[in-house]
């Protein structure tokens, strides 16, 4: 109590600012929540989507055996630096969204894009059946039955698709099916830019 009482107008101003503080904080919070709700509607704010930690980094080193009976060669990290951008697609026969994205992959393959497949935690005969039913978009196909290589890629579900540029750097990752919109809005322009 021995401290000097500050000059009254300054004290009153400070008190007013203090009393306004809760309103200001609540207002900012409210604006943030509003932006989140808007973003939920437009897709700008997605509490689920987690970006890959590997963007901008070289693809991990790995070697995967081929799928017996598919006639496709196996896949290793060396195949990713082929002098042109490639897509790496993790899939499984038990994964429903994989069926949804498959036509888009087939189209990309027809357009001459190199798609390298990795069958994730799938029995070889099931993978073969899947490719027989839906077609084979893959130039190479590795089998990752224990799912270890997938963890090196930071995969957390199937399907996931990665875009790797000429020098083997991961540029883009899609967790979930590559739909027609995503193909048109993201994949195709990126491929063109990186070619």
């Amino acid at each position: 109590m021995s401290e000097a009482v500050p000059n009254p107008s300054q004290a009153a101003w400070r008190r007013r600012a203090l009393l306004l503080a809760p309103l200001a904080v609540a207002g900012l919070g409210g604006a943030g929540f509003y932006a989140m709700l808007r973003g939920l509607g437009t897709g700008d704010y997605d509490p689920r989507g987690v970006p890959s930690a590997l963007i901008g980094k070289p693809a991990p080193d790995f070697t995967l055996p081929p799928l017996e009976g598919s006639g496709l060669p196996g896949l290793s990290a060396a195949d990713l630096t082929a002098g042109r951008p490639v897509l790496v697609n993790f899939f499984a026969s038990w994964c429903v969204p994989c069926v949804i994205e498959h036509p888009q992959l087939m189209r990309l393959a027809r357009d001459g894009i190199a798609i390298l497949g990795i069958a994730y935690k799938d029995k070889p005969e099931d993978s073969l059946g899947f490719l027989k039913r839906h077609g084979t978009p893959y130039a190479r196909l590795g089998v990752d039955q224990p799912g270890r290589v997938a963890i090196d890629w930071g995969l957390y579900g199937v399907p996931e698709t990665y875009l790797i540029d000429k020098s083997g750097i991961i540029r883009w990752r899609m967790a979930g099916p590559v739909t027609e919109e995503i193909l048109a809005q993201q994949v195709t322009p990126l491929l063109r830019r990186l070619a």
Partner: protein
Amino acid sequence: MIRWLFLPMLAAMLAIGPALAVGDPADQLPNPAQEERARVIGRELRCMVCQNQSIEDSDADLARDLRRIVREQVAQGKPDDAVLRFVHERYGDFVLLKPPFKPETAILWGMPAIALLGGALLIRGMRRRRVPLAPDELTQAERDRLAQLAGRPRE
């Protein structure tokens, strides 16, 4: 609240499988000290496909894989932070249940200090502003009350 909490969680589990499963003894390390260390590490790692569960508390496929990897590396004798770094490099900040210190998390980690300091400043400001009454002076009401309470040591 727990009700609202688990509904989404359950929905998530439904999509992934019975995440409430009990665990597999075969995944455990034979050395109890190592197993305990692996668990402590596992509790710091988020099950990516679950709602706010650590990989130790979930039997989602991916959580099991990560549990196995943590145990392998612990068995190889890697130190705790190396195991955490291995997962962090692959899955990013999101996988750490305790966010790393960096400029983006300064407010979060600074919060206890910010709150305490802010509160202390507020209290100081309030005390300075207080109408300076003589501290020992009693109001009439207090004097009355004191008279009534006489004989009581304290209330």
